[in-house]
């Protein structure tokens, strides 16, 4: 049995976060992201990036998609619908997973939170809200489970950085935490209340730092945002936009759907082979294709570092030599790393170039710049 909201894609009219006015008040510049007008930066991408690495940043992620999966078959259903084995995660645990198509390609990457024996929250990318929900709904047909797109009901606020825990501690109105945050591990979640309204506190993120993601009703979002700003004033908290989020996740070697992950990318190519659990007993969508694996010679994701300041960027070609006439790869994300001070990139290259230390050339607008294949992530926080 299934029930759901309409999954008809919205028109191309732009959407606004429930926190839009807070961003306007804070002087944000906006960008279109998957049809949403979201803050790209408030003052300086670099300052926001460094704040998250050294103190804390406050992100509005209300454009992300929240999908409820609930019912007696919820765990078995997710084992069928997704690439991982979600039935084994514990109550209040989170797990990164992939939604595959029959060809073994990636419809979306997701985080799944277990909120009960038979209740899960699936968080999908904003740009994949409808394809992810449609696929999840279609796969529910033979299971006793409901799959509900609750994206419009939720706001999502992330506090990321080494001071995140201290800021949550100091935030007025957060009560009834099911788990003391000081003892909550990474990739765990707990119920709580904010001024009497349900709040989910997850120790997850997309920056490479410690931090929390806070889910609550959209109409409570502004109050929580403002309470976090007040609590963060003594802890170096600054609002941070999507520009800094992108350089932070790139340094942390985290894939971004549409760049490193696509409908025709096999998880194994993206270094995510272990996210696909071929040991689970049940069938799952994409299993046969995953067992067969990508075609021989399929490109693989690598990290690249270079000297100087000129960064290779998404879609720039990779060559094996200065005079090679055909490309041997392509950059999917790249920037001058704010933390490291040199150019970094993620790129798909032919397998023979994937060995660590291999020298390749990036075509930076007509100039071939040497780069070295390196392991991911580029940056790991000191714990």
């Amino acid at each position, binding site marked *: 049995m299934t029930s759901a909201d309409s999954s008809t894609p919205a028109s191309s009219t732009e959407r606004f976060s429930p926190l839009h006015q807070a961003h306007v008040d804070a002087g944000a510049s906006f960008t279109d992201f998957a049809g949403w007008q979201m803050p*790209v930066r408030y003052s300086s*991408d*670099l*300052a926001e990036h460094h704040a998250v690495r050294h103190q804390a940043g406050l992100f509005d992620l209300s454009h992300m998609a929240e999908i409820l999966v609930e019912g007696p078959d919820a765990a078995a259903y997710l084992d069928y619908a997704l690439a991982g084995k979600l039935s084994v995660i514990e109550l209040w645990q989170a797990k990164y997973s992939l939604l595959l198509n029959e060809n073994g390609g990636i419809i979306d990457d997701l985080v799944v939170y277990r909120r009960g024996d038979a209740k899960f929250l699936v968080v999908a990318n904003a740009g994949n809200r409808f394809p992810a929900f449609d696929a999840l709904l279609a796969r529910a047909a033979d299971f006793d489970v409901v799959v509900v797109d609750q994206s419009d009901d939720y706001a999502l606020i992330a506090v990321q950085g080494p001071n995140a825990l201290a800021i949550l501690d100091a935030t007025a109105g957060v009560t009834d935490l099911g788990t003391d945050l000081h003892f909550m591990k990474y990739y765990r979640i707990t119920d709580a209340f904010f001024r009497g309204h349900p709040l989910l506190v997850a120790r997850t993120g997309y920056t490479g730092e410690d931090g929390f993601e806070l889910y609550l009703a959209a109409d409570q979002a502004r109050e929580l945002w403002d309470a976090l700003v007040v609590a963060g004033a003594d802890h170096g908290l600054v609002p941070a936009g999507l*520009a800094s989020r992108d350089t932070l996740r790139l340094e942390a070697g985290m894939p971004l759907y549409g760049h490193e992950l696509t409908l025709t990318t096999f998880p194994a190519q993206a270094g995510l082979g272990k996210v696909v659990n071929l040991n689970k007993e049940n069938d799952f969508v994409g299993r046969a294709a995953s067992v067969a694996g990508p075609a021989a010679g399929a490109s693989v994701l690598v990290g690249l570092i270079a000297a100087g*300041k000129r960064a290779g960027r998404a879609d720039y070609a990779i060559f094996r030599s200065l005079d090679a006439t055909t490309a041997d790869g392509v950059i999917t994300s790249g*920037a*001058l790393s*704010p933390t490291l001070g040199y150019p970094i990139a993620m790129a798909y290259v032919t397998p023979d170039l994937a060995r660590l230390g291999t020298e390749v050339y990036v075509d930076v*607008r007509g100039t071939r710049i040497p780069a070295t294949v390196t392991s991911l992530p580029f940056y790991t926080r000191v714990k």
Partner: protein
Amino acid sequence: MTDTSTLQYTAEHEWVLVEGSIATVGITAYAAEKLGDVVFVELPEVGSTVASGTVVGEIESTKSVGELFAPVNGTVTATNDQVIDSPELVNSDPFGEGWLIKVEFEVLPTLLTFAEYSALIGE
């Protein structure tokens, strides 16, 4: 503080300060804001000949790459070494310390007035 109303502009979001036969060129605050934090600037060599409308340099931010177009035909007489070392000057003082190149020209083409440029960017 530069009086931006006395400058001339291009549709590529550059400003031009004309003093005699020398045009000092930079990008506008609007362009700098759109680019985000500038992290790398590449400028033409002093003495090189540039043609109006052609790309003579690059301005890179963390998010994107902007091209520097020559607004006039002429010869580059100076480049701003300070922005090579401190690209953030393009953001902090686009009309002043963030200037990019000086070009000696013979004929000044028709450029946009402050009012025309303001209208172009909707301000």
